[in-house]
């Protein structure tokens, strides 16, 4: 099978949907001839023109809100935020408007829009270009939140997100854009809300998502050499979250480590631990452990950032603790 980078897979998903459905429109900052800050929209302006691939002014609330209005009136806008940190500026339009509209209006109006945004650290970009806010948006009723970990998943999930009739926030990890993986030539989609077991194992379950999937898989290989067989469950969509997949894996391994790049308080990792406590406590042989960032803003210095964010060693140590019990 051919291989594509994560960025190419995303670009291909958008190109296919632009061709398939005339109501799909892209906008954001620098996504036109410039091709996007991370190159994801490269070539799309040339193929689809300035009426389908639109450069916006620096106005996160403005152009995100335009997405809400356009989605409510017959388009399927796919909006790119240059960095997800700036989603705070757009948040009223996401939280009070997009998420609420269908429900608040008694089902009369739907908001089929996608907001794409790069997330994540490991770049020495300090506290305003690295943070991950998926937990905030998972907390909100009425938004779907997707974080793919491979080129294959990225393409299939983005196509589903664009076709979804609800607002979807699609977070793409900066460390993944250049990674390569197999992507079929033929058409496919991946349903939102379904986790994927990225590595089967029998001793310990790691539930994770986004860039931490590859860190967890690397940790699992190291642990395999110690005789610890790790199962890695990639949530892919954190809202709606795939409870069945989490519970099924716990029933198999009886041990759970949750790996999440960002802060732990009231986060997706808290939710996974709560699901384990509510629905699988009797199957757990050890307390649930979480590997997350320390509760400080992401620091600039590589030394400090390495200390704050999760890494393979921290994951290995956590798995050893639950496996040794």
């Amino acid at each position, binding site marked *: 099978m051919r291989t594509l980078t994560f960025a190419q897979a995303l670009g291909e998903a958008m190109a296919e949907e632009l061709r398939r459905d005339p*109501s799909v*429109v892209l906008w954001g900052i620098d996504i036109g001839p410039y091709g996007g800050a991370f190159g994801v929209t490269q070539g799309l302006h040339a193929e689809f023109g300035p*009426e389908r691939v639109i450069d*916006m*002014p620096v*106005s996160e*609330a*403005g*152009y*995100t*809100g*335009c*997405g*809400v*209005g*356009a*989605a*409510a*009136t*017959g*388009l399927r*806008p796919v909006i790119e935020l240059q960095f997800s940190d700036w989603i705070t500026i757009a948040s*009223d*339009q996401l939280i*009070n*408007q997009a998420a609420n*509209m*269908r*429900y*608040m*209006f*008694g*089902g*009369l*109006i*739907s908001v*089929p829009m996608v907001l794409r945004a790069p997330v994540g650290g490991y770049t020495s970009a300090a506290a305003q270009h690295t943070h991950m806010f998926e937990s905030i948006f998972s907390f909100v*009723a*009425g938004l779907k939140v997707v974080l793919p970990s491979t080129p294959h998943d990225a393409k299939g999930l983005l196509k589903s997100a664009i076709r979804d*009739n*609800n607002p979807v926030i699609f977070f793409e990890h900066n460390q993944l854009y250049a990674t390569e993986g197999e992507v079929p030539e033929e058409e496919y989609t991946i349903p939102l809300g379904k986790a994927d077991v990225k590595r089967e194992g029998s001793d310990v379950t790691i539930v994770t998502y986004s860039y931490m999937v590859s860190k967890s898989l690397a940790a699992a290989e190291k642990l395999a050499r110690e005789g610890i067989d790790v199962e890695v469950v990639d949530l892919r969509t954190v809202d709606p979250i795939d409870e069945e997949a989490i519970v099924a894996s716990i029933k198999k391994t009886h041990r759970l480590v949750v790996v999440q790049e960002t802060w732990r308080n009231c986060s997706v990792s808290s939710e996974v631990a709560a699901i384990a406590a509510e629905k699988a406590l009797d199957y757990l042989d050890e307390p649930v452990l979480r590997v997350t960032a320390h509760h400080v803003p992401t620091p600039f210095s590589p030394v400090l950032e390495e200390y704050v964010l999760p890494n393979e060693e921290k994951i290995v140590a956590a798995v050893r603790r639950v496996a040794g019990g």
Partner: protein
Amino acid sequence: MDIPRETLLLMYERMLKVRHFEDRVKDLFAAGEMPGFVHLYLGQEAVAVGACATLNDDDFITSTHRGHGHIIAKGGDVKLMMAELYGKATGYNKGKGGSMHIADPRLGILGANGIVGAGLPIATGAGLSAKLRKSGQVTVCFFGDGASNQGTFHEAINIAAAFDLPVVYVCENNLYAVGTRQSDVRKVEDIADRGVGYAIPGLAIDGNDVIAVYEACKEAVERARAGMGPTLIECKTYRWRTHFEGEPDTYRPPEEVEAWMQREPIAPYRTKLIEQGVLTEAQASKIEADVLAELDGAVEFARQSPHPEPESALEDLWA
């Protein structure tokens, strides 16, 4: 400007409907028949009605927390509105939205909005959508003087101006945002002057003169439909009531309120229509009687309608 007779009559009927709807709501709310809280449009009738009279059924509007007038002006069904205000299952939003969140996409009503200034980007997106779909639809965005100080005002109008979007921004300047007199927190006298900053026309007009509102909006709507971009129209008006019902009026001089109530928009318009022979006294009274009868029916419908089933609270989130 030559305004068709049917439009003149429609504006009279719609202004009366807004006035009497709000009068009913005032009394019914005070009597404890409605949950939550309400923001009344009394005194501002000419703005919504004059603006919406220039629109087609499939044109869009975005509305505000003070939205009843806009919904009625765009043709909203007062039965469904009243039932929604009562929180009943038969209301526009099945009791899920209430006074501040009425929408009717069949009439292009993209929703009232409880967040001040949030409608501006949404209206701009509807304008972008109309332009990209080449549908010829125009969007009128209603917002208040308070919203004109939000970042969304500036972001939205800049985008609309940059792309020549078919949007008419209608600012209802009623002098106060809740209890703060806007001249204390804004340097510029006319909000319309802010159009200069975005290279679009900005007009300040008498918002209590329905003909003035109609004429200004008509020209702006035609400009928008012709692909010539957005217009900012500031309508100087006044709300007779406090920000929300039940709020003590500690911040407005009584003589100011009285002076604006003397300048109310409907009675002079009625006189003018009769003087011009558009309407007889008898016809005017008949229109008003019909409006009152329709509102009686709306209140009765709302009162008799069932409450929503509690479990229906879990429906309508996902499409």
